[in-house]
């Protein structure tokens, strides 16, 4: 057992990559624990390593924000937890423990029974995520009845209740509307009502506000937070919007090329980040409290191909500080190291170097 104690003040913590293998299939104490998750897709062009050794923990009532660029493996991770990845062509290894039950090696039927009941998901685009030919009410009733043996009448009443709880006016009328008759924000509310209809203990929100108007985004985030407190569920918030993470999350997991680059509390991630990629994300975030003449600092280059992941540190071709450690980052993959309790980063630069760069070069420009 090489698992590290992550300290009492962090409810959501991180398990060491190597430790997971040694630990075998021991049920963890955490509500959700992902150990060394790998999701690979063999294609004609080569093996796509969408998720390549990811581990994290999450407790009930806590929110974990997973951030990263497109193609960093955020969505594949969440689909993998729900068992919604394409089973035909994906190879999954590692362990996913949800409330003492292992999911990677469980039968598809067992995972299906948990989906919707114990773990639920909110998707990015609520218009395409709802069936266009069935009423909103029907779709909620369906989600409720598959896990609860109740009459249609009771389920319909429950659907109306849920719609009311997510703030849809006149829910008894709107329950018979079709998704296209709802506005974008209403649709996402209905989607949330559907996801929460069976009181799931784990809620995964995959970019829940990306497709919405800015004014509606804040309402939806508030709604998710309120409902989380009401249901005391664990939430994984997947987003590329650091603002959303700052708003909602307790901890942040920064993903790069299918791996964890940095893991920290929200406070640490925004005020004491220890990975050059996190600096890049912070630098490219527009802020209202800054002069408009100041330019954003985008990360140069593009996200790497997940087939030919760069050697060593996957971020090294885009990293401005790679030379500082004599080319080590081009050959050797940095391990995820816990530098402070609950704060981990995978970088070859010494902690001293990183702290200096952050204080002298990055922070003043933000």
């Amino acid at each position, binding site marked *: 057992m090489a698992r590290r104690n992550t300290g009492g003040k962090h409810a959501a913590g991180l398990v060491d990559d190597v430790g997971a293998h040694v630990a075998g299939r021991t049920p963890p104490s955490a509500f959700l624990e992902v150990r060394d998750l790998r999701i690979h897709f063999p294609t004609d062009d080569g093996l796509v390593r969408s998720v390549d050794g990811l581990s994290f923990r999450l407790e009930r009532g806590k929110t974990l924000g997973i951030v990263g660029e497109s193609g960093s493996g955020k969505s594949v991770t969440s689909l993998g937890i729900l068992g919604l990845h394409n089973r035909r062509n994906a190879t999954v290894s590692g362990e996913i423990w949800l409330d003492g039950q292992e999911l990677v090696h469980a039968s598809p039927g067992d995972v299906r029974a948990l989906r919707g009941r114990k773990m639920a998901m909110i998707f990015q685009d609520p218009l395409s995520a709802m069936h*266009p030919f069935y009423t909103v009410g029907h779709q909620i009733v369906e989600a409720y009845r598959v896990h609860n043996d109740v009459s249609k009448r009771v389920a319909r009443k429950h659907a109306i209740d849920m719609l009311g709880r997510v703030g849809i006016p006149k829910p008894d009328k709107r329950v018979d509307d079709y998704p296209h008759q709802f506005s974008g924000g209403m649709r996402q509310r209905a989607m949330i009502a559907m996801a929460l209809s069976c009181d799931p203990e784990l809620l995964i929100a995959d970019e829940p506000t990306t497709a919405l108007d800015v004014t509606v985004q804040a309402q939806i985030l508030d709604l998710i937070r309120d409902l989380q407190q009401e249901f005391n569920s664990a939430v994984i918030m997947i987003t590329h919007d650091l603002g959303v993470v700052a708003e909602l999350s307790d901890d942040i997991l920064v993903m790069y090329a299918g791996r964890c680059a940095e893991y920290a509390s929200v406070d640490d991630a925004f005020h004491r980040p220890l990975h050059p990629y996190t600096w890049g994300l912070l630098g490219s975030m527009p802020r209202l409290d800054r002069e408009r003449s100041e330019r954003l600092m985008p990360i140069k280059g593009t996200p790497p191909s997940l087939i030919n992941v760069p050697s060593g540190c996957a971020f090294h071709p885009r990293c401005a500080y790679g030379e500082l450690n004599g080319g080590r980052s081009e050959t050797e993959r940095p391990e995820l190291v816990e530098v402070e309790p609950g704060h981990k980063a995978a970088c070859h630069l010494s902690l001293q170097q990183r702290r200096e760069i952050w204080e002298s070069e990055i922070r003043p420009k933000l």
Partner: protein
Amino acid sequence: MGLLLIISAVTYAIFFLVPRAAGVSSDDIAGRFAGKQPDAVTLAAIKDRFGFDDPVPVQYGKFIKGIVVGDTYDTGTDKIDCPAPCMGYSFRTNQSVTEQIVDRAPITFMIALGAAVLWVIAGVSIGVLSALRRGTIIDRAAMAVALAGVSLPVFFTGLLSLAFVVHKWQLLPSVNYSDIGDNPFNLILPWICLAFLYAALYARLTRAGMLETMNEDFIRTARAKGLPERTVVFKHGLRATLTPIMTVFGLDVGLLLGGAIITEKTFSIPGLGQLALDGVYQSDLPVVLGATLTAALFIVLANLVVDILYGVVDPRVRHS
């Protein structure tokens, strides 16, 4: 309204374009009606009776009037009354075109509807199976057969089945039309041959549609709710896949109701298709006009039914 407009356009086109393009003179037409070696007096009488020498718009007016309110042919000696949808009389057999169409329509209906039931059931099930088992031997075999089905015309599969099933192995009696009314299963061979062609087409359509639908976000949502795969496929997937297929189906059936020409010819079944074809061979103008008009009517009606059904099936259409 739009449908009436289309029908009028079709009648106009077939009335004015077809005979003129063929370069047939009024003497020719009258000659066909009169039979062998007519004398000038007979010809003139015929022309006068049918108004062959009237200006074309006048003839067109008479034709339309015949369809709407009926017509009366007056030869001086006797009067022939032709009630409401009157499309004139065959130059060859002197039979009322309307009667001929009414006689033959049930035969074509039976061919088209029987085959339609077969091909929808076969085509859609094979398509769904193929999509769900994509890349397996089942999928490949089904799609190979479907490719063959699409490529083989009815006059090939029809003749082949006649040669083997009926004549060589004698599994079925030869297709016999006097019995069609009594025993519609006499049509089993034409049904299978016609359905094979369309089933192949529908299997490919369904497979492609199903593969596309199963990648939709709402399918992922259905799975995320924890629905059994059966419900995901048949309730959520098939429903969305079948809607566009329904459109094609309506139009295909409408087209066939106007006459399954090749099938009828191959199996020598006297349906609307045969009627039209014989009319063309024999330059029997009223018959050609009547058959074409009937076919156009069915297609327009099928379109209408599809449009109405689309509103029932797809709520997005209903509310817009």
